């Protein structure tokens, strides 16, 4: 549970299990508590009550081991303006205790993977939005986390980069990295996630595969299940199509 000093309860009785190796999606409207949940898991927010365990390590008591296992790509680009692209990767890995030689090799590998080699000596504030997104993901992966948390990773990026990022995260999931993804793009969740949870007003209201959620809400697809969740069934595109055909 997370209650802010203002009295707002951002998370209420959230109980969620993400299996090792899973690609897990967390969906919900703005302000539902997605980012708060992620921040509680990574030490950026402190839960008011309850426990979070990451690969068996308590995120509060045993925070060192818990955070070591997590790579976070946050929603807002939070890059350090004073650092270059390569320094951003190097410093991050240093914060996670990675030796210099290993840092250099890993940074070279990720710069290549994310097409950032030419930008390696540029200050982060000069990068385009898409480049910043790439760098944030590369930074999250620098210390080889077992759990990668992606908080709306494709918000505001072009189609090409979105597909590139999908391709990459799918690959690292297949290589064994557990992934927790929050997104507003239902297509993204359907394409990538093994399991999806709906969060609304600080509570997990449903979870399962895309098909299971559709069945639970008695609708045709994940989008309609989502609209049922937020009480906006009238916006359903599939229902509109059916009605159009019927008339």
């Amino acid at each position, binding site marked *: 549970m997370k209650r802010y000093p203002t009295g707002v309860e951002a998370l209420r009785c959230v109980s969620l299990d993400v299996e090792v190796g899973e690609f897990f999606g967390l969906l919900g409207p703005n302000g539902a508590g997605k980012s708060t949940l992620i*921040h509680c898991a990574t030490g950026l927010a*402190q839960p008011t009550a309850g426990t979070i365990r990451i690969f068996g390590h308590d995120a509060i008591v045993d925070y060192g081991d818990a955070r070591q296992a997590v790579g976070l790509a946050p929603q807002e680009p939070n890059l350090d303006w004073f650092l270059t692209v390569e320094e951003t990767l190097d410093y991050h890995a240093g914060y996670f205790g990675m030796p*210099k030689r290993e840092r250099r090799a890993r940074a070279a590998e990720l710069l290549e993977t994310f097409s950032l080699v030419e930008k390696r000596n540029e200050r982060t504030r000069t990068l385009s939005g898409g480049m910043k997104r790439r760098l944030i993901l590369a930074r999250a992966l620098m210390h080889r986390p077992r759990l990668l948390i992606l908080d709306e990773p494709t918000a505001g990026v072009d189609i090409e980069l979105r597909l590139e990022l999908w391709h990459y995260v799918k690959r690292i999931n297949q290589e064994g990295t557990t992934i927790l993804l929050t997104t507003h793009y239902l297509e993204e969740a359907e394409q990538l996630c093994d399991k999806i949870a709906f969060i609304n007003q600080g509570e997990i209201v449903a979870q399962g595969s895309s098909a299971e959620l559709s069945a639970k809400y008695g609708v045709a697809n994940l989008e309609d299940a989502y609209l049922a969740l937020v009480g906006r069934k009238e916006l359903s595109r599939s229902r509109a199509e059916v009605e159009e055909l019927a008339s």
Partner: protein
Amino acid sequence: MSAAQIRFFTLSRREVNRFLKIKKQTVGAPLLETFLYISVFGAALGSRIDQLHGIDYVVFVIPGLIMMAWAINAFSNNSSSILQQKFQGAIQDQLSSPASPLELLLAFSLGGFMRGLVVAVLTFTAASFLVDLPVEHILVLIPGLFLVGFFFAQLGVLIGVRAEQFDDVAMAQTFVLQPLIFLGGVFYSAALLPEPFETLTHFNPVYYMIALVRYGFLGYAEANVALSLLFLTLATAALFAVNLRLFSRGYKLRA
């Protein structure tokens, strides 16, 4: 190096590199400012004042200027660095790492401490070329200056963590810190002040810091050296304890 050592070294390196990347502003400007103080108060006005307590006026003010340079730079570096990182959100990278509150606090403190040290050493070196600056009690001077540097580094961290806008930092520096330093006796001896100002000066903590550093350089003690050292040690330890508690609680750092 162990993982913890690499982590602490990297956290500290980030803080030191930040000020070195903008050294014109963080090192050059304070050096010029100190040089201007020496020129105006030492060379121009000093020729009229002659001596204070048997010491040339320009020599009398330099220890205070060195202390002031270290103090203000340690403070402003840390308060600005932390507030900037909070604004950008970049501090989340350190906060979501396995670093402990103690590691984070020490690393954030070290940036300002090192910047103050660089400016103070360069000021001392430049002053030594201009005037004959003695070092009478190095065993008081070194711990005295280090404690002053660490105290103001801690104060900078405290203000940076508490601040929500740049105005908060400017407020602390302009309306609290600088008056305390200027009125603590950098440019004069408190003994020359009329009452009640002489007595009032004794309530200014910076007065004891300046007295300590001046004693270390010149051998002239305006306040009790042992008590000043003890007071400064206790004040620094208390401030460090407050900061460590704030970092452990995540005050204004973690939601």
